């Protein structure tokens, strides 16, 4: 029996060593990987070195910013992440701590607790849901760390827990989509609309639906004949659209809560032998590059921009707060509606 135990212990020692090696190896690889898309890769070694020095914020005067991102579920989100990374990693006065929550609120809460433990100078949070932030944001407040919300808000009544919300107005986006459609087709037209909803429960889906439906309420001719979730993905958008076209082809407009679903719907419409963009108007939200390409090809009509490039605005807000300036509670991002020639003109400049 004793003979047996020794090699086992050796094995465990080996295991632990490997683990340590992989943990560290993983870190190094990831450090390079994570920053490689950003042009500021030269800054990376210095910033990772900084984290090893005692209390970075005190010693070299850098402002440490913790950013709790939702995940990488779409091209839009990647553009936002890249914008924030570029902004802060390109500036020697800042150090960015980035955490990716894989679409899970509990991971974001953990990230914020970690930021508090690291005594960062500011926390940026893109909340995955609206509710459930009171406890942890209160802890941040107690620790005296200003919190900024990016692109999505939190439940009303907690305005004292954060400094500013930087982002778009989803309800307004829904209204803009409806407004464009009504302007285009005429206020009295008879229009059957298919709505492709985002992920059930997501605030972008709820608000874009609400804004749109409110805006067409007063126009009796505009009817949403079908509304179903497409999970914000191309595949689901296509499948849902296909199923509906089998039943009824008498529709004049498709309103998708994001461009990816709109692109899926376009494929389904083409495969059913109709012309997207002419027979059926296609309205998307987000303003991703492929949507602009589709507009240029005449397959899509309009995309309501939802700007992900929030990095510069966030940086400005943090600097203002540190300087003691009072900020607006809601800093709206610069956004536009793109259709037709305007979209074609804008295409070469689209970053995401």
């Amino acid at each position, binding site marked *: 029996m004793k003979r047996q135990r020794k090699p086992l212990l050796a094995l465990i020692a080996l295991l632990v060593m490997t683990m340590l090696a992989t943990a560290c190896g993983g870190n190094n690889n990831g450090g390079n*990987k994570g920053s490689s898309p950003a042009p500021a890769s030269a800054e990376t070694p210095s910033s990772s070195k900084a984290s090893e020095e005692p209390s970075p914020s005190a010693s070299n005067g850098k402002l440490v910013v913790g950013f709790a991102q939702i995940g990488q579920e779409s*091209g839009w989100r990647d553009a936002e992440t890249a914008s924030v990374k570029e902004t802060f990693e390109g500036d020697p006065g800042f150090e960015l701590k980035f955490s990716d929550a894989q679409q899970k609120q509990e991971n974001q809460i953990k990230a914020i607790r970690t930021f508090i433990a690291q005594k960062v100078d500011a926390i940026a949070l893109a909340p995955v849901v609206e509710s459930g932030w009171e406890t942890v944001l209160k802890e941040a407040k107690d620790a005296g760390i200003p919190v900024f919300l990016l692109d999505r808000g939190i439940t009303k009544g907690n305005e004292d827990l954060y400094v500013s919300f930087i982002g778009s107005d989803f309800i307004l986006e829904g209204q803009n989509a409806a407004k464009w459609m009504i302007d285009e087709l005429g206020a009295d037209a008879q229009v059957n609309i298919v709505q492709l909803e985002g992920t059930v429960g997501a605030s972008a889906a709820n608000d874009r639906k609400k804004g749109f439906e409110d805006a067409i309420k007063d126009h009796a001719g505009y009817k949403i004949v079908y509304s179903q979730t497409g999970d914000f993905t*191309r*595949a689901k958008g*296509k499948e849902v659209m296909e199923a509906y076209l*089998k039943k009824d082809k008498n529709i004049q407009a498709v309103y998708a809560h994001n461009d990816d679903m709109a692109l*899926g719907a376009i494929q389904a419409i083409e495969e059913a032998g109709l012309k997207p963009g002419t027979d059926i108007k296609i309205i998307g939200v987000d303003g991703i590059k492929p949507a602009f390409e589709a507009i240029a090809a005449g397959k899509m009509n309009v995309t309501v921009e939802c700007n992900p490039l929030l990095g510069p605005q966030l940086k400005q807000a943090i600097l203002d707060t540190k300087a003691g300036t009072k900020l607006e509670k809601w800093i709206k991002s610069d956004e536009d509606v793109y259709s037709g020639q305007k979209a074609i003109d804008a295409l070469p400049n689209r970053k995401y």
Partner: protein
Amino acid sequence: MANLTASVRNIGRNPIIWPLLALALLMIFNLIAIPGFFSIEFHDGRLFGSVVDILKNASPLAIIALGMTLVIALEGIDISVGSVLAIAGAMGIFMLDGYPTWIAILAALGIGVLCGLWNGMLISILGIQPMVATLILLTIGRGIAQLITGGRIIDTTSASYTFLGKGYFLGLPIQAFLILIVFALLYVLKTRTAFGLFVESVGGSKTASRYAGIRPRSIMMISYAIVGACASVAGIIVSANLGSADANNAGLWIELDAILAVVIGGTSMRGGRFYLGGTVIGALFIQSLTTTIYSLGVPAESILLVKAIVVILVCLIQSEAFRKLFVPVGKKAIIE
């Protein structure tokens, strides 16, 4: 009378009859509830209609489920298929950038088989529980797919590649033929070679088969490699259909549907006999259910609920113990 009941009971014992019955019931329901469900149009040399769509959209699920049937027959499971699908799709689209289509397809298939072999190695050589062994790839897989795509959705315009997901042949979508090809290959493997017998035997009892001279390890390796290949075929179909690869969302939760399809198809999760035809019917049933729900316009919120109830019902009907509840005790005594 007793004869009749006995023959009914014999039919009832044939595992394929239950999924077939469920599918038939669903179709009858559709015939009544959804006007135009069975109407098929023919234009541009293609067939259009809900039924054609079901064939088309069921293909990734059916192909994965066919592979899954083998490992479930081995008393195993592979929950990494969704991740492998994402990896293969990402690989295919990635390779199209600079290489001809056939190389991209081979690369996608190759990486799928590799994933399958990795699973097979963990399970057969290290002897790790199938569910946990494949849990590793389920966790890591999407990370690998994201490494390939660089974390964004990549697309392609290659017509020859997207043909595999959008094309039509003889008026039917190409996917229908792909299901047929995979089914035929596995069916030949099952009935014309000893492999099928070996799988059933190893699934029934490893120890007994080993004494009978079968090598469970290689049978398991081959089976998991086949699942990997099936998953990568599905990955190619999905990425070709959309002309893009999405590392995060492609094939999400498909492992659960695939396992359901196999079980509905009459193959027991406890291993042993397996039914490829039943699996295809199971997959078609699941896809028809989804299409039915979409066509009916059931609110998005209750889709999962409907699915849960149908799954429980189908599984209950398949359970011998449940059916016995409805056979009066007296008659049962006579029959037996």
